[in-house]
Structures are given as structure tokens and as C-alpha cells.
């Protein structure tokens, strides 16, 4: 049962907003037989600066034939729900030779992570200063599989608190991985309070999930918001005709954004916001994540662990309340220089790691270019936060008897190998099976396989989107499905 549409139907029939407990009584008992359905979610999680060598698993194959690499050890209890994929490469999106050298690496490779397009070439072809391919998460969100099914088409989130150096390239290449159109990078929300508001705006009204029910003040504010947006649209549409051709294109981007916000507001005012029998609005986050000059390390008021935990809780909330099914999450901007002084140094071997003394350095110069152990410790900490998120998602069962994690695919990885900045051997793990569409518990050793094949496989084999192509492969190799991971 699709909660969103079932609720829409019910509301239309009843003509009034209905309180949640009544809904719950109709919802299938999750502990019982799996009779219902649950939506598939897709979530790219970006690991900046590549990964330490200890990412790579020991052994290959499935089940007992492989073990997690020691920086992936926080995933131990979820190993049975993972694919770790070795030897994906994205150099072929940049170089006709297929070589993995793409310079400046931090400034260009992340732009291709979800697009398999060389932004630099596209910019010059389009004669604009900012361009990239449309990213896979956005192609998904525009497809019938996802489009219109949730109040928010997608969410872009991140944990970066300090301005990153952009390697002499457009910062959109290293601070955004989602591109809505070829000229429109998507910003991400970093402040947990902003994320909370974005979710609550669409999840609470009319559903009674926060006890608000049909609060007349909420309805009044939404009506006023609509009136404000009408004026904005009316004036911008009229102003548009006075602008140059180039500015009209910019204005169209603005108008699209306003309409999208208006659609969301309309959805909510009709009482159709995210509804789910498991929707639970958590506490309002309070932490400060922003100062004018950025936060570069732990302070009295800022702790990255708490930031990550808050974001994890919000992601779970967004998924539980079904306000969106696509979330793109950047653990940091590429080439982050955040100082991981909240992480104790560790000593790594192939078999595991143990804490030593002292605290970790800054991510890029001190970590990625520092000792292998420091880099591994920072990667391990970030992996741990993703594993926390996955465990939370796995603890919530849905109508089809599977967990939210089972019903999702988390594409977790980075845009470069590691300290060598090479655009091959990309650290990549898939967690969850998209509702049974992927095999599980595997270390898949591919042979220099283009990353776009993975996106292609996600779109077609997991989501059934029927795509015929995606991104670029300048070597001329045809796009193909990675059959090794498909169930």
C-alpha cells in the first residue's frame, strides 16, 4: 500500500484531515505477515577525499568468502546487507584514454561522481561558467518512480561547516554533487534546524503527527504563504519580459524554484504532507553550525559527532515520514580541511584498528596527505556515522516486512581512490537491497569498471526506470549493467 496515495484517496473521500491514530489502525501490523508494500529509497552518501587503503575488503565473493576492510569495520553487524564494490573508475568520463588522472583532482572529480560528465568540457560546450551533467539522483527524482510521490522531490544535506578550497575550479564541483539541470547545482542544507523545519513544514500539517492536527494558525499561515508566492510569481513573470535573453534563463530557474516551493505548500495545505504509520517528529535540534568564518574544529558549542548524529536522526525522520525518498548527503565538502580533533588517533592493520594517543589532524593536508593511520582514522570515524544511520534505518520495519534499510539503497563512496587522488579504484559500498533487488553480503571485484555502469544498474535493475544511457564514457565502451550485484 502506498501510504501517500492511500491517504490522498482517503482524505478526498472524507473531506477532512484525519488524525494519525485512525490511520494506524488501518496500517498492517509490522510484526505480522508482510502483506504490504513499501517504497524504495535511494541515498548517495559522499565521502570526501577518497578513502584509506584499509577500505578494501579481505577476500572476495559472498558470505564467509570475504571480510570487511578495517575502516569499514563499523559496518560489521550489517555486513550481510552490503555490497562492497572494488575497481570502479570514473576516469573514462574525463579522459578518452580512460586514464585515472583528472586534474585538478579535488576540483573536478566530485562533479563527475553522480553525473559521469566532465563539467569543464560541458562548460565550454555550453559557453557558460557553471555546468555539469544532470546527476543520477535528480534523474531519479524526475522519473515516474519518484515524481510526485512525496512532498519533497529530494533533499540535499551535508556536514561541512567551513569553506573548502575549490582547487581553482567552480566550487559547485566540489561542494555540490547533485545537479538539477545542466546549469543548476543544488545547494545542501547543513544546519540541522533548517533540515528539521523543511521536514516539519511538510510532515506535520494535517497529519496530526505533532499533535497539531488542523491547527487553524497553520492553515492561515499556509494560505498567507500562498498569497505571498502568488505575488512573487506574478511580479517575476512580468519582470522577466524586461530582461535580456540570458537573464530570462536565470529568471526561469527562479520561477521553477518558486513554483516548486508553492507546490509543496499546496500539498501541505491540502493535508497531504508526508504520512506514514511510523512517522515520528523528533525534538527540534538546537546546535549551532554556523559562524561567519566557519567552524574548523571542535569548539565549546560545536561537536561534529553531535552534528552527524543530529543529521542521522533527521534523515531517519524524513524517511519514516516519507517526506522524500531521495536524499543526497555529503559527509564533508571535497578537500575538507576540518580538523578531526574529536577523533582519537588509531593504529590500523588489515585485521582491525585500535586507539592510540593524540587526536586526528585536519582532513585534507593532515589526513589524506598525512600518515596512513590518521587518514584511516578519519575515514573510519565517518564510516561509523554512516553505519549508525544504517543501523537506525534497519531498526524500523515497514509494511512489507523489511526494514527501511532493506527498502533503500545507500550508495556510499567517494570520487577518488585516496591519497593518490586517482580516479579509479573508487571506494564504493552499497548498503540495503532496494527491497530485494540487489544481492547482499558480497565483495564484488570488478575490473576497471566505469562508475556510470553502477548508476545505470541502480536506475534500471533496482528502480526499473528503463534508461538507455547515462553520462559519458570517452573510451567508447558501451554502458552496461553490473550483473554481479543484481539479485
Amino acid at each position, binding site marked *: 500500500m502506498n501510504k501517500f496515495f492511500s491517504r490522498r484517496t482517503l482524505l478526498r473521500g472524507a473531506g477532512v484531515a484525519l488524525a494519525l491514530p485512525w490511520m494506524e489502525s488501518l496500517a498492517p501490523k509490522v510484526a505480522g505477515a508482510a502483506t504490504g508494500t513499501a517504497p524504495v529509497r535511494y541515498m548517495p552518501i559522499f565521502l570526501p577525499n577518497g578513502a584509506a587503503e584499509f577500505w578494501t575488503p579481505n577476500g572476495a565473493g559472498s558470505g564467509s568468502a570475504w571480510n570487511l576492510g578495517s575502516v569499514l569495520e563499523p559496518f560489521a553487524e550489517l555486513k550481510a546487507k552490503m555490497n562492497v564494490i572494488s575497481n570502479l573508475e570514473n576516469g573514462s568520463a574525463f579522459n578518452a584514454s580512460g586514464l585515472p588522472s*583528472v*586534474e585538478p*583532482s*579535488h576540483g573536478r572529480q566530485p562533479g563527475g561522481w553522480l553525473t559521469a560528465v566532465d563539467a569543464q568540457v560541458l562548460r565550454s560546450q555550453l559557453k*557558460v*561558467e*557553471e555546468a555539469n551533467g544532470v546527476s543520477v539522483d535528480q534523474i531519479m527524482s524526475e522519473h515516474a518512480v519518484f515524481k510526485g510521490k512525496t512532498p519533497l522531490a529530494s533533499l540535499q544535506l551535508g556536514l561541512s*561547516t567551513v*569553506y573548502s578550497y575549490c*582547487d*581553482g575550479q*567552480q*566550487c*559547485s564541483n566540489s561542494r555540490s554533487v547533485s545537479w*538539477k539541470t545542466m*546549469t543548476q*547545482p543544488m*545547494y545542501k*542544507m547543513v544546519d540541522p534546524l533548517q533540515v528539521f523545519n*523543511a521536514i516539519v513544514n511538510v510532515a506535520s500539517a494535517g497529519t496530526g503527527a505533532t499533535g497539531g492536527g488542523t491547527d487553524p494558525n497553520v492553515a*492561515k499561515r499556509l*494560505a*498567507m*504563504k500562498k*498569497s*505571498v508566492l502568488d*505575488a*512573487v510569481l506574478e*511580479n*517575476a513573470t*512580468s519582470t522577466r519580459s*524586461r*530582461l*535580456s*535573453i*540570458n537573464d530570462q534563463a*536565470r*529568471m526561469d*530557474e*527562479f520561477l521553477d*524554484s518558486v513554483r*516548486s*516551493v508553492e507546490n*509543496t505548500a499546496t500539498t501541505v495545505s491540502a493535508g497531504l504532507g508526508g504520512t506514514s504509520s511510523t512517522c515520528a517528529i523528533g525534538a527540534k535540534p538546537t546546535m549551532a553550525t*554556523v559562524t561567519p*568564518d*566557519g*567552524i*574548523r574544529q571542535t569548539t565549546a558549542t560545536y561537536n561534529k559527532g553531535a552534528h552527524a548524529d543530529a543529521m542521522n536522526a533527521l534523515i531517519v525522520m524524513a524517511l519514516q515520514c516519507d517526506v522524500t525518498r531521495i536524499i543526497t548527503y555529503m559527509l564533508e565538502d571535497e578537500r575538507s*580541511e576540518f*580538523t578531526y580533533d574529536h577523533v582519537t588517533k588509531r593504529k590500523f592493520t588489515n585485521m582491525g584498528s585500535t586507539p592510540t594517543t593524540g587526536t586526528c589532524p*585536519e582532513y585534507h*593536508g*593532515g589526513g*589524506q*596527505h598525512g600518515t*596512513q593511520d590518521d587518514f584511516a582514522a578519519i575515514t573510519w570515524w565517518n564510516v561509523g556515522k554512516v553505519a549508525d544511520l544504517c543501523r537506525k534505518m534497519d531498526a524500523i520495519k515497514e509494511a512489507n516486512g523489511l526494514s527501511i534499510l532493506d527498502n533503500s539503497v545507500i550508495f556510499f563512496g567517494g570520487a577518488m581512490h585516496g*591519497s*593518490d*587522488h586517482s580516479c579509479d579504484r573508487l571506494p564504493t559500498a552499497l548498503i540495503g537491497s532496494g527491497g530485494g533487488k540487489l544481492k547482499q553480503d558480497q565483495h564484488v571485484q570488478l575490473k576497471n569498471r566505469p562508475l556510470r555502469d553502477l548508476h545505470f544498474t541502480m536506475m534500471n535493475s533496482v528502480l526499473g526506470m528503463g534508461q538507455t544511457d547515462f553520462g559519458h564514457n570517452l573510451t567508447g565502451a558501451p554502458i552496461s549493467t553490473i550483473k554481479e550485484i543484481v539479485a
Partner: protein
Amino acid sequence: MHLSRGVTWSSILALGIALSGCSGMVSGDGNSATGPDTASKPAAGSGQPGVGAGGASNGAGTGSTPVPSAGGPGTVPGVVNPGLSAMHRLNTAEYNATVADALGTTLQPATGNWRGGEIDGFDNIASVLGVDDTQYGLYLDAAEAIAKDVFASDALRAKIVTCATADDMACVKGIISKTGLKAFRRPLLDAEVATYTKVYTTSRAQGADHNGSLQNVLWSLLSSAEFLYRMEFDNGVKTKHLISGYELATRLSYFLWSSAPDDALLAAANDLNTDAAIGTAVDRMLTDQKSARLVQNFAGQWLGARKVLAHPVAADVYPAWTPDIASAASKEMFAYFDEFLRSDRPWSEFLSADMNFVNAGLAGLYGIPNVTGTASTRVEYTADARKGFMGLIGFLAVSSVDRRSSPTLRGKWVLVNLLCSPPPAPPATAGKLEDKGDPTNTNIRAVLEAHRASPACSSCHSIMDPFGLAIEQYDGIGKFRTKYPDGSTIDPSTLLPPSSTYPQGISFSGLDGAEKAVTDDPKFKECITEKLYTYGLGRSLSNDDKNNAVAIEKDWETTGALSVGRLLHRLALAEPFRYRNPGSAQ
């Protein structure tokens, strides 16, 4: 592959051991200045300055290649077509400043989370300041919060609500016109007033009172494209044309104040059509304290001062680097530029002025005696060899990596920011360099010399490294030293290979020698012009723009004192600032 990792070009960049392409100076696009003289000549065939007939003969609707005329707008000789103008979303600093100045709110809702794009070293470049659903949602919420904040204050509300009769539509329209002028930086059309009046009537119908309904009007004005973007209208004109007085007032105010024009500038906007009027406006704006934002946002980005606080420094290597030092070092960089902005001090002294702005902690790091307290004070300490911008601790720190100084990064920084001559990107075939042990203790010169022994690398590193090698006597946080941690003596002498500026090449030594070599390069004066031009107009410079920057620099240099204030004047009077180029064929 265990301890001696393979390191590619970009990791080398990070380490600062090596930086750029090894394939000579021919790669890259023709736009970037790859040598001292590449961009220094106006394009052949670009029109000569008009002589004789005065007036703005190249106004709206004239031919496709108008020529500026002496006596009319755009009197700087040699200046040709300005590059494309684009509508310009307010960035975070501009948004916060605008709502504070125009409405008096102390809310600063635009945050570092509202990241826009950033290219060419600045975050106010129109072409990369788009918007998306998420960002617009934040704008909408921020506008609501600001309107609420303004209407919660009796004093602030009184400035807007100048008549109190509910449903008196003449009153309401008057308020919308007046508030709209501030918000949109131009008078509203009648149809626009009617549009926003509908918000008032809807709000009244919802049961809100007069003030509450006007609060909702303000919410809608601040949510509008016309507020969030600086727009310039072509009104059907398809070729280069003069911008309106309001548009010029807006360009000037976002250039010099990072904010909207104030009431006085708006009131005088229609008279902003002579050199004298523009000059008067610029003078007034520079004496206003809001011009501190020019220092904050222009110099802060160009010279790296905004990066100092967040610059990573390894505490185990440099325990002396504290938040207090970082803060004082950042303030010093701003104060140093500020003195050039507000005095007649010639720009040619930027790399030789012997002044510091220090508190006790920062003075200690410099070795300057007799400074007490936590507040910064201006001192002229001549007993050491250190002077000029390149001697500032803030600069020396941000051009280093966290654990040591980096000659290549510093050299590249000088090429990119002080000489506007960035080295080309490294080729895909760039070789690898083994990282030898702990770089903190290494004699970097020896490592670099070994690296340059490769002919492929030498062509770029021979021009990048010298400026950095000459200032190696200042460590990763700018403290003076004569030896590396491994005990080897630092040799600050170096050699710049032959170039058009220095046909015989030039050898120099130490901070003083490096600063003189930069100052003597003609690109040094062109570079500040190019940077101000980029920042002032908020666009990536076209080839014509770059040529214009050179012409404006010549004009600056030949018509009076070489002060930054005069350069701002010459820029504001030049054609690119007063005209708009609508762009593509229509």
C-alpha cells in the same frame, strides 16, 4: 605502497612541494594570463577612444560596436566593449547587509550554509549564483522572519507604516511604493504596486490587521526576485547601452558597501550621469563606515584575510598559533589594506610599507617589543627586516600548509593574486613525486631542486618556486627563522628565469628582494585593477574586460596619484561600470 605512497599532482599541490603543469606555458585557455604580457595589450582593432564629438553617442539603440566618446560616459581611453552583464543574486554577505541597512533588522539570516558559487576567487560572481528549491525555501522563511522582526519593533515598524488607516488603499499603496523602492532599489511600476497590494487585501480577508497585513506585504517583497537579484533592464534594447541611474547607484553600492543604496543615493540616482556626480557619490560612500565591507569582502577574499581564522594549523608543530593570534593576524591584514584604501599612500608601497597592526600576542610572534593588551594597535617597527604585505603573519600562514611553509604554494599565490598570472593546470601526464619522510623537518629547497631536475617539471616550477623560496625564512605561521627544523641553514636566494618583464632573468634574495621583484613587475598594478574590476562588476572577465582593466590601470597611473581611492574613482567612471552589454543575439 606502504609508507612511501605514490603522490600525484594534486597531492603535491596539497603538500605544496610542487604545483603546476610541466608542459610549458602554452596550455590553458587563451583568456588566462599565462605570462606577464599576455593580457596586457588591447585587442587589435578595438576602437580608439573617440575624439571630437562629445556626449554619449553610444547610447541605447545605436550600432553594434559603439565607441566611447571623450567627454561622455566612459572617458577612460582604450576601454572597449564591456563583457556580458547578468542578473545577480545577492550573496550571503550582501543579503545580510542589505536587510540590516534597508530595514534596520539585526537578524542576519543568510549564513555560511547559504552557499552560492565562487569562482575567480570571489563569491559575488553572478554567473554562479543560481537558486534552487531548497535555497528559495530558505529565502521565503527568512523573509517571513525578517518581516516579523521588523514589525515587532515599534521604531522599525514606524519607518514603514507611515499611515495607519486600515484599508485606505492610497495609504497602503504609498507604503508599498516607498518600501518597494528600498527593497527593489528602483521605483515600482504601478502594476507592481497593484500586485503587492493584493497581498495586503488577502491578508485583511484572512483577518490580519493593518500592521499584520503590511508585515505580510514586506514578507512578499523580500521573497521577490526583484529583491533577491540585482537586475538591469534592457527594455528591448539589444546592444550595449547606458544603465539607468538607479542601476548605477545599485552597482556602486554593492561594489563599495556590499549593500543596497541608501536613501540619499536613491534620491540622487537620476542625477548620477556625470563624472562629477559619480565622483561625489564615490567619495561619500568611501567615507561611510559601510565601506568597511569593501575591505571585508574584497580584500578579505583577494588577499586571504577571510581565511585566516579557519586556516588549519597543526597544534603539535605550532603551539604558538592560538585563536587570539589567528584573530589578530586576520584583523591586521584587513587594517593593512584599509590604510591603502583610505590614504593617499601609493599602491607601489603595498609590498614595502613598514607598518603592523598588532596586539601583545601577535607582536610577540613578530618579535615586536613593548606592545601590550589584546586590542590591536598600529606600530612601525623598523628594527627587523620584515616589511610589506608579504611579511604579514596572516599572509605567511594562509599560504602555508598546516605543518610547514610551502614555497610552491606561496609562489603560486603570488603569481595568481599579486601578478594575475596563474600557472596553467598540470597536464594529465604529470609525473609523481615520492614524499620523503616527514616534510616538517625537510629542507624543502633540496626537495624542490630534485623535483625541478625533471625537465617536464622545471618549466613551471622555475617560475612558481622562486617567490616562495625567497621568503622561506618565515615559517608556516610566519615566524622568522634562519634554519629548518633539521638544522640546515635556509638560503633565501633565488633566480627567476627570463621573461618579458625580466628579459635577462633576475636574481633576488629574501622577503625584501621578492617584494621588490613583484612590485617592479607591471602586472602588479594591473592585477589590483583586474581584481577590483572582477569584484566590482561581479563577473568573470572576458578578453575585452581584461584589456579594459589594463587600459584603466594606465589611466590610473597617468592621471594622478597611485592611490586605491583614485583607482576606485577611475573604475567607477569607466565605461564598463556605466554600460551594460545584454549579450547573446536576440
